[in-house]
């Protein structure tokens, strides 16, 4: 099985591997954040590493990277997922998608202008013409889009209903502010709990399958328990 929880001993990883950051570095392994590894590197559990991601802000290339402070261009790596046969062709495709996102990102200094939880990828359009202006992402949506648009690999079946998420789990993933209805609405989460939402851990479970299966079938999480990776 490719990927898993990182160990104290460093592991060699290729660029565009997916790294996961836990909410707490404990045995629950609840994944709070996912990101793309920027370069080939050696990683051990808990090390900070440079990534392309939606922190927020979006950090997808030269422009968005320049606007973000250095520490927001990194995440703390606790687990990793990857396709061990990702081709040069697919890596090139992901690089193109990152370049496109880099030019499409709204750089205003408000996290909510770049960030959305539901749907995980959303175009903001002009209210009169309907012409697209820029995209907002969740951290999962960003990584999913890079693999989908870039490499033609759909990691999750986003058209399927996702497992129902209660407020406690939502808070674990996105923090205390989501306990307030107004904040949830800004993030695209409307109505009363539970909600059918994509959580970062689901992406890691998709990548823990065989390469053949990943390429053939987008993953559909079976329960909200997949918010943790690896499962116990």
């Amino acid at each position: 099985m490719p990927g898993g929880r990182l160990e104290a001993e460093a592991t060699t990883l290729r660029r565009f591997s997916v790294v996961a950051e836990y909410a707490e570095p404990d045995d629950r392994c609840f994944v709070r954040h996912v990101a793309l590894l920027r370069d080939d590197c050696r990683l051990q559990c808990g090390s900070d590493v440079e990534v392309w991601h939606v922190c927020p802000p979006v950090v997808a290339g030269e422009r968005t990277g320049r606007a973000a402070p250095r520490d927001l261009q990194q995440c703390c790596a606790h687990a990793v997922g990857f396709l061990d046969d990702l081709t040069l062709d697919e890596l090139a495709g992901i690089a193109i998608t990152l370049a496109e996102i880099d030019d499409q990102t709204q750089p205003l200094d408000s996290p909510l202008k770049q960030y959305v939880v539901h749907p995980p990828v959303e175009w903001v359009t002009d209210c009169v013409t309907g012409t697209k202006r820029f995209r907002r992402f969740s951290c999962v949506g960003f990584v999913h889009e890079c693999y989908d648009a870039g490499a033609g690999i759909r990691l999750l079946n986003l058209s399927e209903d996702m497992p129902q998420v209660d407020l406690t789990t939502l808070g674990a993933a996105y923090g205390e502010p989501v306990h307030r209805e107004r904040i949830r609405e800004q993030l695209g989460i409307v109505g009363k709990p539970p909600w059918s939402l994509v959580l970062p851990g689901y992406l890691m479970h998709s990548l823990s399958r065989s390469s053949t299966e990943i390429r053939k079938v987008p993953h559909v999480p079976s329960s909200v328990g997949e918010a943790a990776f690896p499962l116990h």
Partner: protein
Amino acid sequence: METIAPLFGDLTHAAMERRAGKLGEDSIEEQISAAKELPASAARDTLAALLRPAANPASCCSALQSLMASDEHKAAEFIVDQLCGEVPSSAWRNQLVLFAEVAQTSDETLRRRLKQRLLEITASLQESAEAEVRPVVCSAIRTYASLISPSEVETLTRFLDPPRPVETRLVTLQSIVHFYEAHPPQDASVPGALADRIAELAQKFLDRDWLVAGEKAAIGQSAAHALAAMGDARVAECVERVLSLGMPWVVRQLARKLESTLRIWQFKGVEDSDPPAQRICAQLRRLIQAPAGNPS
């Protein structure tokens, strides 16, 4: 030029908190919750006070965010008035351009003034040597392209020129695709000079000798996509060129982009028998049927 970096202070704070386990609780609360409870007149008063000459730019941004949350129309009006007036600093002008992309207004007068001003600002900033202006220029082009009508789309041609030194070709091509996805083309409505320049870019940037993954390849692909979205018959030549590259990722990505445009048009009621849709369908078939990685 004044740097806009200090204006990212609030975001830094928010994102740092998120990394620590919170999604920027304090700053988001300040920006949204407090703003929504604040009367619009109070937010405007705050803004007016903050815009005194000695005002801190970060505080001005925060106040403007509050105004947007409480009264979006007034915020749009304020942004346009500010942009069209004498802007006290380049840093504040840049922030206003970014705010303009987020603001929404259906007021025709405001929209007309805004697009005219964005066009002027973009033309002027294109020649700036400051690296920091590129996101501002990109934002201005995206917003401008979202405001214009088919009779004005030709004005985007100037942003397809080589960098002067700011690179605007990729964002302009993407904006042209988005424009035609929202305004499906009719033969008479597509400006010839714009299509000619895009065809030229497609030819140059889809060149096997120097095509590498990254921005340049994205320009080539986006040019081919833009021609397809404009309903231009030269998309067939682009597809021929893409197939001859023998690079499966270019084939796959162009196919995905064409599929996406077709889906958007279908959602808008465009029939598959309409000539632009027919052209895309035909080229899509060629891309999908091509043996992966083999030159045609």
